[in-house]
């Protein structure tokens, strides 16, 4: 589909893109009356080729710092960090050709339009400039960004600029792309575009590591995710596993009389956890045996109520993380 592109990684097939072992940051959080703690502590993660990672957490600062260490921008206090099996230079702020770092949207040229900028960024890939122009133009449209394809960069929002830079990164020869913008708020349309670009990046054998506070972004774009809480990683694995293991809500009920339904169901559904949240009755199965939603539907009808709305929970990243954080707080 997008011919003219080839993965160039010095001809070396590298599987481990990032290896972080027991990394602790130099930076500390200082709060009055409390013992200072390191912003990041004992961080261990392995990121492999062609994986799309969403690094998230309660603090944008923690996320940003972790990705800055990964990109060789910040020093770390202890531990070991290896990028693309080439080690990490002692001197920081050295630009690594195998890492495309996106830490802001200022790197885009405002005196060009989107297509012109991407042509400039990807110019060395193809000698036939006309073919490349057509390829990039159609790529922008396929990614759902047709409406900004010929827009002047100066008129774009910082989020739109960031997505344009991500396209430039996807056309680069860097094996690893770090999209470190957890403070940015991407609307759903842009999230969908990022999801499509992520697919393309994955297909080309590159690795994308995104710092984000958006659960939707992780759900739509990422194959793997990790959650930082209190400077530590409390989850590290695939998005699918996260959703299946931590979003335990089986059925959601909406009605004016949620309290009445809950009281009746408490009797009819032993082995289930019932809770009301944001005007919704959430029904969780506490045992493997009771996980069948058909059984829960039957019991709801047995209450004698006909709820306005019943749905099978589609297991979202947002719910999974809420549960994860809850469990972490309880452990503490």
């Amino acid at each position, binding site marked *: 589909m997008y011919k003219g592109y080839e993965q160039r990684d010095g001809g070396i097939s590298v599987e481990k893109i990032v290896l972080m072992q027991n990394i602790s940051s130099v930076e500390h959080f200082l709060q009055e009356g409390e013992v200072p703690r390191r912003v990041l502590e004992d961080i261990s993660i392995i990121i492999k080729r062609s994986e799309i990672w969403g690094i998230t957490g309660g603090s944008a600062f923690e996320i940003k710092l972790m990705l800055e260490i990964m990109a060789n921008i910040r020093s770390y206090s202890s531990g070991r960090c290896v990028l693309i099996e080439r080690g990490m230079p002692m001197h920081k702020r050295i630009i690594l050709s195998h890492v495309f770092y996106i830490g802001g949207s200022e790197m885009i040229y405002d005196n060009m339009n989107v297509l012109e900028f991407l042509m400039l960024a990807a110019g060395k890939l193809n000698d036939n400039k006309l073919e490349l122009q057509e390829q990039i133009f159609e790529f922008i449209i396929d990614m759902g960004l047709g*409406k900004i394809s010929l827009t002047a960069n100066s008129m774009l929002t910082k989020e739109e600029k960031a997505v344009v830079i991500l396209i430039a990164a996807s056309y680069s020869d860097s094996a690893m792309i770090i999209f470190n913008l957890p403070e940015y708020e991407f609307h759903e349309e842009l999230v969908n575009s990022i999801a499509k670009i992520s697919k393309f990046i994955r297909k080309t054998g590159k690795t994308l590591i995104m710092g984000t506070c958006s659960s939707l972004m992780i759900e739509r774009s990422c194959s793997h995710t990790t959650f930082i809480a209190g400077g530590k990683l409390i989850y590290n694995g695939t998005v699918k596993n996260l959703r299946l293991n931590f979003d335990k809500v089986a059925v959601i009920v909406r009605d004016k009389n949620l309290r009445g339904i809950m009281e009746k169901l408490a009797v009819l559904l032993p082995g289930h956890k019932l809770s009301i949240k944001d005007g919704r009755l959430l029904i969780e199965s506490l045992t493997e045996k009771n996980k069948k939603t058909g059984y829960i539907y039957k019991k709801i009808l047995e209450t004698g109520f006909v709820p306005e709305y019943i749905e099978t929970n589609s297991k979202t990243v947002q719910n999974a993380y809420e549960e994860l954080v809850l469990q972490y707080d309880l452990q503490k």
Partner: protein
Amino acid sequence: MPQAKYTTEQEIEEMRMEILREKQKMQREHDNTTGEKGFSKRRLAARAAGWTVFLSAVILLISAIVSINAAKSKGQIPSFLGIFQLYVVESGSMEPTFDIGTIILCRIPKEPQSLKENDIVTFKTLSGAIVTHRIVEVMAEEGGGAAYRTKGDNPQNSEDTELLTPDRVIAIFVAKIPLT
């Protein structure tokens, strides 16, 4: 008037058309370049053929000059390629057709007995002189042979007294070498 932020469908289509036009233009240029290449090949072949002809002519001329000089030095009739001979007109008997000093190219005849009226022939007289005159009459001899009455083109000349027999015919006139 402030510029609209978003790219419209029309602008997208216009860009697609522009890319298509440029591609077609490039294709045409490519085709022209390929055509020009073919044309240059033909031109190259023609030039090579020209050079071959020119060099052949030069070689022929040099070999002719060499053979003429060699024949002259031996007192023989200069010839080249075995069938052509060159003569220098030394008298005014054929004026105005040939001025004195004109070089003429002649060919050894395949059938000297079948010459026609108006042919210019070079022959040996009975006294052994070499003369170039025109046949003015073809005469049949007894026994089926032919004899020719000859005459110089100069109006002051009368017909030659001796009849020319085919065995004394040396060559038939082919062409006058220009500028001689």
